[in-house]
């Protein structure tokens, strides 16, 4: 018992303390969402009421087009994830497996470009898309299609870089064997590489999805219409007022929006952790 105390008690004590720290806001959000007064006040640790008023308001109040926001976020983040991984994996394959002039320069350039935080070029993006709007109103400033294109471009650098790390770790023997059997590069890519990389592509797509879902500033500059907004922009504007009493529907909405993401994240955590480190630490 004494030994146990010395060796393990401090571990449990510390970890439980940090667990409380990490759970506190989440617990608060859950109890607030069932509290009809609509504030993030902590009146007692034990919930006093169990009301669905906030959830109901979220789906019925015409001033909160919550479902539209969620739909927009799903479409934009989903399309960004799928398209950027599809396009990015082709480039990553070429960087990792094909030999051509300028490959090294290409990789170094990519490294530099992916370091440029998209937010720094935000005024330029804004002005350019303002100009695009003058001749193509359907993809210019203020449109979801335009925002998607910018996300795609922005995701490209990081995704190619991440995916290249994964492709490098797939044994070369496999595609060399395919080559000996007479497969072209395109065939190797579709028939050998894609099936092998599928789980990895799924993880990068998920990271890309979460990243886009959390993206706020471009979305805010771009999506002015209430109906076109994403969840992030919609909610920020919604609770932005100084004496806002909109917390009730907000916490309810953030729970609904977060639960699926948290669930997927937890179930894939092993792969995600590998993915996070693969880009920068090479084995």
């Amino acid at each position, binding site marked *: 018992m004494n030994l146990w105390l010395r060796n393990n008690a401090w571990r449990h004590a510390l970890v439980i303390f940090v667990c409380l720290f990490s759970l506190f806001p989440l617990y608060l959000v859950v109890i607030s969402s069932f509290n009809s007064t609509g504030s993030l006040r902590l*009146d007692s640790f034990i919930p006093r009421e169990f009301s669905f008023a906030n959830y109901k308001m979220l789906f019925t109040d015409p001033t909160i087009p919550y479902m539209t926001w969620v739909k927009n976020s799903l479409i934009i983040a989903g399309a960004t994830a799928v398209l950027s991984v599809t396009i990015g994996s082709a480039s990553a394959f070429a960087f990792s497996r094909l030999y051509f002039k300028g490959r090294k320069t290409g990789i170094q350039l990519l490294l530099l470009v992916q370091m440029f935080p998209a937010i720094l*070029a935000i005024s330029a993006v804004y002005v350019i898309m303002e100009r*695009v709007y003058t001749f193509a109103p359907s993809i210019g400033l203020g449109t979801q299609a335009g925002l998607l294109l910018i996300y795609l471009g922005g995701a490209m650098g990081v995704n190619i870089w991440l995916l290249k790390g994964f492709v490098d770790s797939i044994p070369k023997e496999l595609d060399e064997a395919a080559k000996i059997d007479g497969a072209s590069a395109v065939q190797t890519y579709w028939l050998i590489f894609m099936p092998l990389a599928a789980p990895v592509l799924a993880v990068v797509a998920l990271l890309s999805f979460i990243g886009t879902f959390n993206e706020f500033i471009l979305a805010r500059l771009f999506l002015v219409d209430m109906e076109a907004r994403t969840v992030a922009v919609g909610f920020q504007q919604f609770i932005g007022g100084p004496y806002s009493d909109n917390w009730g529907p907000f916490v309810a909405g953030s729970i609904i929006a977060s639960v699926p993401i948290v669930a997927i994240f937890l179930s894939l955590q092993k792969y995600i952790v590998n993915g996070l480190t693969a880009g920068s630490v090479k084995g």
Partner: protein
Amino acid sequence: MTSFFTGKVSFAIKLVVVLLVSAVLLTLTQSAFAQKEYFIAGFLAITIFLLILTYLSKISIPLKFFLPGILLLVAFVLSPILYTVTMSTYNYKTGNIVSQGEAIEQVKNRGFEPDANGTSFDIKIGRYEMQEAILVSDTINKAYFISTVNNRIPLNAADLTINEYSVAESAPDFETLSDADMAKADELYSLKRFKYQDEYFIALEGFEVGVVSRQVLEFDEAKDQFKNVITGDIYVNNGRGNYAIAGSPDKYLEPGWRAPIWFENYTKLFTDKRLRGPLVSVFIWTVTFATLSVLTTFALGLILALALNKPIRGRRFYRSILILPYAMPSIMSILIWGGMFNTEFGAINNLLGTQIAWFQSALFAKFAIILVNLWLGFPYFYLISSGALQAIPSELLEAAAIDGANPRQIFRRITMPLLLQILSPLLIASFAFNFNNFNLIYLLTGGGPRAELDGELAGATDILISFTYKIAFGNSIQDLGLASAISLVIFVLVASISMYGLRKSKVLESFE
């Protein structure tokens, strides 16, 4: 299956897709060209050419894999970067947004004044002989006429419908506008100058009143200057995007245009006192914030990883709870924390039994930011630290123990140095990320509280990137040129730090 890639069917599909995409892009190219956006049109044209060349010929196999990615990168990352570089050398801000040609046009359009008596007439807007026209009623002299841009047609009062205020409602051959046309009328009529007499014309003031006016500012193209014909003032091109009176630079004509000023936006960062003060404070806080963020999140993450580096009971359970903050969409978490720090309605003051106005005091606001970032960031370092701890060969630790080292010595001399070596690139990456952690600052404190520093733009918790955002998209003056210059300075800083980190991790060597 393999035949699918070589068969005629697949070629036909490919052909159709490539041609369809090209057709769409071609339409875009044409409209871009029509709008005189030559750069964009040129880029689109090259895109079409490359698409067809790459996918319908066998010129290069790697290019088939690359092209879509490269095109997206060039279009939405590289060109904005280059555009940022260009903008940073321009006087490009509110009041200096348009091109010089447009600015001259606008100065001319605005450069008129009412005549000495301030004569004005009641008018109806409409069309006459297929042209925009106004039906003018001089109610004092009971004179009526129709005026177009080039002609003035006198009317006989007997032919008109005149209301009780002596204003003509309609005239033969003059068609008043339908409601639908009225909606678009502003664009068509507001800038028109309807004929009156000599140098005087009638300018519209709303849709019911016309004011007799004359052009006052005249442009002299040869000398590149404006002259006020009444006062005789001469406004010369000051080389910085405005026509101004020589010797008194504050007297200039609106609007100006975007003009190249080379490195002035950069030198301003060091010489302009109103900018330098806030910039220095913001920079110090940015570095402090990024450093503290990395240190706190890494420290907590590492301690947890060490505590859970033994198979103690409930480890998996703890692990799932500890990474919850990381799994939550960060944007939601930040907004929730923002609510929790609310003075009256927030849980933090509830819990502590205090009445602290967290975001009104610089010190408390900074503390709140670090605390929230700790909550958001420690699970990441916990995860990668546990991974790194497992990557340290156990033989090393055992050998040290056999040599008589105590646990503390083993940790300080072996575990920690190895950990730092493995994790340093990630620590540097985290520093670079926090250096530009816009969302946290913007959504939590909005950079506030203000008035601690220069009340205009920078708040006490603004980091460089949120400060830049306010310069570019703030409420008062939006200075895109200056914002671009600061953006590039940030990029150089962050890229150097990241490059240093990558060199340490030896990523670059792998393809040298």
